């Protein structure tokens, strides 16, 4: 049960070359009072096969999306991923490398990241993008921090249509960093321009709106952007469902300053929500204030094109307390997955992805709302998620659906209590066939009886 190659005998020989007898002799710097006087109280070592069986049993206790039909979205999406993606992205040269500090032997990661940055720009319509952040929520935080600037004081407005977990994360950082966070109300499921107008002021540094918003509703981004830009605030588009960019106008088209998004559904396993992939794109004038790593093109001493980590003067390893962000380890490998995934879909496929989500979700919406007692909550265009009122509490309905191996919609009652106990948010991605949807409809009919 060890990954230590050297045997005790070899270690003994090594100790001898050091003039030591035991490893204890090397640990003299540790004061005795600091030493743990007993073995760690942990479960005993397990052999590889025993551990494999143990974890297969643990994993078996989870209902997975290969076994169940998933109609749950709310920030994480059951996406179809071509086989090529993992085959390539998991290659050990990528998997087992560190941050590419030595570019001469890291051109693979660097070029893949450069391609990733480009693709993020291509789908968002933005000018530049970084090499990744932790996840969508912290990308939104970084967007706020960038907008706030050094010192970090000022006001950030966030729509109530932004993912509740993202707002919670923002609130945590707002408290610590000392900036003001205000929520913009919704009207009929979309960000209220009236309320935004009412909150905008000279101290407003950022306006954050999610597109499509948490309810799947397609926001009127040009209107909100126009309003936001009547002040000096930066307009931040948050995106949790990047597939929407296949058909919806990209943030670049509505003049967003920053895009902060969750990109893990681009080719990565859903993995209980982590690791996730924060995407961060911006206008190019924000380049030297960007958080996170950036890969740039350059030449080598033989005159060949090559890639390097660049503009590191923004980063903690150089700038320390003056860095634009504290991030170091990011989500590089997930970015490679996303790059292979997006290459694999390509121009046509990425559009088709968006189209399929919209069409399948609308079919499901029509079928579900045809069930007596199931009512749409908002009267707004939507992408691949929609909120409906059920005749019974969502938690009850979901328990019945689970018996049919269906993972039902998101229960809105905790995060949007104003919608009551019976409001559910259903998600229908490109992975759900007509038959899947019909199964949901018939199971739901039974559940609401």
């Amino acid at each position, binding site marked *: 049960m060890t990954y230590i190659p050297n045997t005790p005998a070899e270690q003994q020989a090594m100790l001898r070359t050091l003039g030591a007898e035991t490893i204890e002799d090397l640990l003299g710097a540790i004061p005795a009072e600091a030493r743990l006087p007993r*073995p760690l109280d942990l479960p005993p070592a397990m052999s590889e096969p025993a551990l494999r069986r143990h974890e297969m049993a643990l994993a078996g206790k*989870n209902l997975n999306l290969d076994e169940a039909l998933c109609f749950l979205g709310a920030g994480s999406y059951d996406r179809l991923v071509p086989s090529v993606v993992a085959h390539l992205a998991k290659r050990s040269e990528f998997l087992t490398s560190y941050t590419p500090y030595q570019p001469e032997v890291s051109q693979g990661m660097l070029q893949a990241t450069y391609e990733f940055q480009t693709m993020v720009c291509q789908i968002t319509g933005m000018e530049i993008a970084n090499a990744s952040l932790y996840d969508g929520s912290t990308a939104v935080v970084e967007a706020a921090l960038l907008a706030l600037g050094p010192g970090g004081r000022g006001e950030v407005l966030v729509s109530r249509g932004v993912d509740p977990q993202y707002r919670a*994360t923002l609130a945590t950082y707002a408290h610590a960093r000392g900036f003001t966070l205000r929520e913009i109300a919704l009207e009929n499921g979309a960000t209220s321009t009236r309320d935004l107008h009412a909150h905008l002021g000279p101290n407003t540094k950022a306006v954050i709106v999610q597109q499509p918003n948490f309810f799947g509703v397609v926001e009127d981004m040009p209107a909100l952007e126009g309003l936001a830009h009547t002040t000096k605030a930066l307009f931040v588009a948050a995106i949790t469902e990047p597939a929407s960019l296949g058909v919806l106008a990209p943030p670049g088209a509505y003049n967003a300053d920053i895009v902060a998004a969750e990109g893990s559904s681009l080719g990565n396993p859903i993995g209980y929500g982590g690791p996730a992939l924060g995407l961060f794109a911006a206008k190019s004038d924000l380049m030297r204030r960007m958080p996170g790593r950036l890969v740039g093109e350059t030449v*080598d001493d033989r005159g060949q094109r090559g890639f390097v980590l660049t503009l590191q003067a923004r980063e903690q390893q150089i700038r320390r307390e003056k860095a634009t962000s504290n991030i170091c380890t990011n989500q590089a490998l997930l970015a490679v997955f996303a790059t292979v995934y997006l290459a694999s879909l390509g121009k046509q496929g990425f559009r088709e992805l968006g189209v399929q989500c919209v069409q399948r979700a609308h079919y499901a919406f029509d079928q579900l709302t045809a069930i007596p007692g199931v009512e749409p909550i908002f009267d707004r265009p939507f992408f691949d998620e929609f909120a409906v009122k059920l005749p019974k509490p969502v938690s009850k309905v979901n328990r019945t659906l689970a018996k049919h191996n269906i993972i039902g919609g998101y229960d809105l009652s905790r995060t949007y209590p104003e919608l009551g106990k019976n409001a559910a948010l259903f998600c229908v991605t490109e992975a759900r066939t007509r038959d899947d949807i019909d199964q949901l409809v018939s199971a739901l009919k039974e559940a609401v009886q």
Partner: protein
Amino acid sequence: MSTEPLIFEMGAPGRRAATLLEMDVPTRPLEDLVPAAALRQEDAPLPEVSEIEIVRHFTHLAERNFGVDSGFYPLGSCTMKYNPKLNEDMAALPGFARIHPLQDDATVQGAIELIYTLEQMLCEIAGMARVTVQPSAGAHGEITGLMIIKAYHESRGEGHRNVVLIPDSAHGTNPASATLADYEIREIRTDGRGGVDVEHLRELLDDKVAALMMTNPNTLGVFDENIVEIARLVHDAGGQLYYDGANANAILGLVRPGDTGFDVVHFNLHKTCSTPHGGGGPGAGPIGVAPHLVPFLPGPLPAKDADGTFHWRDAGPQSIGRVRANNGNFLVLVRAYTYIRFNGPDGLRRVSESAVLNANYLMHALKDLFTLPFDRTCMHEFVLSANQQKARGVTAMDIAKRLLDFGMYAPTVYFPLIVPEAVMIEPTETETRETLDRFIAVMRQIDQESRENPELVTHAPHTTPVGRLDQTLAARKPRLRWSPGDAPRTSEKSVPVGVSR
């Protein structure tokens, strides 16, 4: 090896790879579903490439990348140990990889159990009362820990504490995180033995101090002998002690930060627990806290009911709130869980002992030719100065580049900042003696070359797919993305090397 084109320079209009499901639902014109103004006018200009082009492209890119599986990776501070393949297989199980973070607890009992158990195990390893696995990486753990410390001080009416003390040997994320938590930084000097200068610490301590952040062993690979006293001083001044766990690979089963007085500890599971670093990430940065800080942890936290079922429990009213969406980098946690269960208590202790042995073995064999700023046994890593070589015109960076010619990755260079021409070497416990011996031989050869043929070193690397890259050009005229019409950056020097390919 020729350079590989960008994927945007490949393909042809109309080519594609992935296929989606056949469209089997009735469709309507998009404009009937979404207002035209909200629709995309032009397709995203993604590449148009076939599957074989994608496969070859990324295979070629992988061939141009060096990982732990490719060879020795003595990158100090990064703990680039062997990443067990078992961990990968466990993380790929559909029961872990294919579950949705918002599923009902009843349908993810195995996942919550795993996280719950991992938290317990990390508590024991660090000697802390409670752990959260929410933070995504070490730096994320740092900011989370500092926010907890802030909330704690505030809860005691000491919200005025706005200073964090940080040794000058610290990693850059420490000060960056402190700034992010709205603290001012005071830097503490390193003493003559490589530890915190206790006198200086005493001077800096006052009632503004919220916390001292430190690693132990620190970035010099030195275990701070005065840790118990330091802890007492900080606590006496009303401060909290933060442990940067990036170097925990040195102390498993030997020392528990909690026992030496630390109030908050972060783990870099991607270092200590051997989850692969993925070319820069993902990692996972759980933090553990002492009992008095438990109420401030972000939530939700996993709980075990009397009936043996697991569920997520909301954090209490004093919680700082969540620091990201969902429950941490779960698939990284699976790998760490696997690693800890595989090793068990004795195995973990042997990990650290062996890491210390390997580091001392290397240090011992190199200290005659390279300057050792603090000549004492090291823990899992050590820092040399290449100042003697520098005097011959060969810098730490040159040495790093030359190492690449021998099929090895380079040590961390120019860090920690307090050592001139720093070369920071961390062999880890998973390297064989033969590999260490070969590294020693190569380092000695490079020293020799620095005397006899310095040009060989200053122009290195010679055998890599590309040579030294122009960092200045990259930063002066940044090109951060490909755009249509971009010609590759090449210089006049561009001539085919050797036989054409």
